[in-house]
């Protein structure tokens, strides 16, 4: 299983290095969303604080800062849908799923390989988006270990569940529209836990964030386990 996972991950990463879709298209998409979130939230600040005669620029920045962890993870979620879609597009564009079946690769290995490759791409994406969010939303980190743990676990959970549902929908014509409908509700708890853990890592206290990290760990194990067990039957149906 691990041999197959490593083989698949290397292949997917080599394809990404050659095509640079995540860096060239998904990353700009994510940065654009961060900017648009900032623009969309700013006008509402006067409504939020109507008694303030003039809402200062500093106030607006503080409101943005408060919601920044949630905006960051929403951006990651939306960007991950594109990365996941891309991950399966390369398998379906010339019938390569059939060739994977013919090769007799372990389905669990294929699943883990795809997950590993997307995780690697998303971690690079998140690093860039994190820098962008820190600059745009005026964030300062207080606990790097908490943030790093939350990011790795949440990314693994998002990728595992996303890979599973993208594979499930990959044989359908309505795949592009169906995948977000399937994946986003499943990832709601991950979004909540990742946002609250990130809030603690940014604003403190860090001790408030670790229970959410624990919850992320549970969801990560759950999604990875379900993926390993069910990817074989899903592949047979696609």
């Amino acid at each position: 299983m691990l041999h197959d996972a490593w083989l698949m991950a290397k292949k997917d990463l080599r394809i990404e290095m050659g095509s640079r879709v995540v860096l060239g298209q998904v990353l700009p998409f994510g940065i654009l969303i961060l900017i648009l979130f900032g623009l969309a939230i700013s006008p509402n600040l006067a409504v939020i604080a109507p008694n303030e005669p003039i809402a200062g620029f500093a106030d607006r920045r503080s409101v943005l800062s408060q919601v920044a962890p949630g905006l960051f993870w929403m951006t990651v979620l939306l960007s991950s849908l594109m990365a996941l879609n891309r991950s399966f597009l390369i398998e379906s564009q010339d019938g390569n799923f059939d060739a994977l079946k013919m090769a007799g690769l372990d389905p669990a290995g294929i699943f883990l390989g795809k997950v590993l490759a997307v995780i690697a791409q998303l971690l690079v994406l998140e690093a860039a988006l994190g820098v962008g969010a820190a600059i745009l939303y005026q964030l300062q980190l207080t606990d790097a270990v908490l943030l790093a743990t939350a990011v790795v676990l949440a990314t693994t959970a998002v990728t595992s569940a996303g890979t599973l549902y993208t594979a499930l929908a990959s044989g359908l014509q309505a795949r592009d529209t169906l995948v977000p409908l399937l994946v986003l509700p499943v990832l709601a708890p991950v979004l909540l836990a990742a946002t609250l853990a990130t809030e603690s890592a940014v604003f403190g206290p860090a001790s408030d964030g670790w229970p959410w990290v624990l919850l992320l760990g549970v969801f990560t194990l759950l999604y990875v386990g379900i993926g390993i067990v069910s990817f074989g039957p899903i592949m047979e149906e696609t």
Partner: protein
Amino acid sequence: MSFDPPEPDQSPSAGQYPKPRSSTAAYLRSEPDSYALEPTSSEAGSADNSDDARSPDSKDKSSVSEFDGSGAVIELSEAVCVINQFPALAGATLSIDEGEIVLVRGPNGAGKSTLLRLCAGLIPLTSGTGNVLGHDLSDSKRRRLLRRESGLLAHQTYLYDQLTVEENIYFWAKANRVDVSTVDPVLDRLDLGGRLRTVAVGSLSAGQRRRASIALMISRRPRLWLLDEPHAGLDQGGRQLMDELVGHAIAFGATVLLASHDLDQATALATKTVAVVGGHIEEVEHHAP
């Protein structure tokens, strides 16, 4: 572990594998040798190199070949395959012995490709009975084992456009647990050596992509060749080469089932022709050797 080309010090000795030919023409004149066409059977395990030793499922690979050569390689009886609620095969009965080259002809949508995919173990049998290379097609586990022993040349190339020819072939060699150093002669034979090795598949012509797809299939050394329009997209030299490869495969004990609309070329190759119409096999015609 990678699907990179083997390092120079990992190259096989001259006596172990055939030397790369300087040209395809020279290779075409050569006698069939053991470079890659010999189907995997009892020697399946020997194909692994140390870098690529099989993980837990290696046992499955070595235990795949249970077909002992006696009886029919393909035995279908009233086989029905329903795909998206449509009976693509509607009661096909067919028997093919080892070493035969069988042409499947029929109009578009008759069920030729479905027949090949069924024999590759890629689609389940809805009803009827089927046995290919000793594997019961109604058993999903046996179908998965059958896939490793059969090679399907389909309309799709099974190649990644973003990877080079070499990267594609090495990836699939690794995925199929084939010794990567044995695929170099295959690339040379398919005229994909030299500069084409490092060209991205997406930049190749349709004919070159087809050759790469053929290289991918024969590097697996299948016991059953399932060819869907094998001459499509190939130039005259490629068509002749395809015929020679089929001949070599037969010489090494493989069995070939090919679907084609190019009846002149395919009939000359075949030992038997079957006609598929509306999901049924309606006619079987034997050719003089």
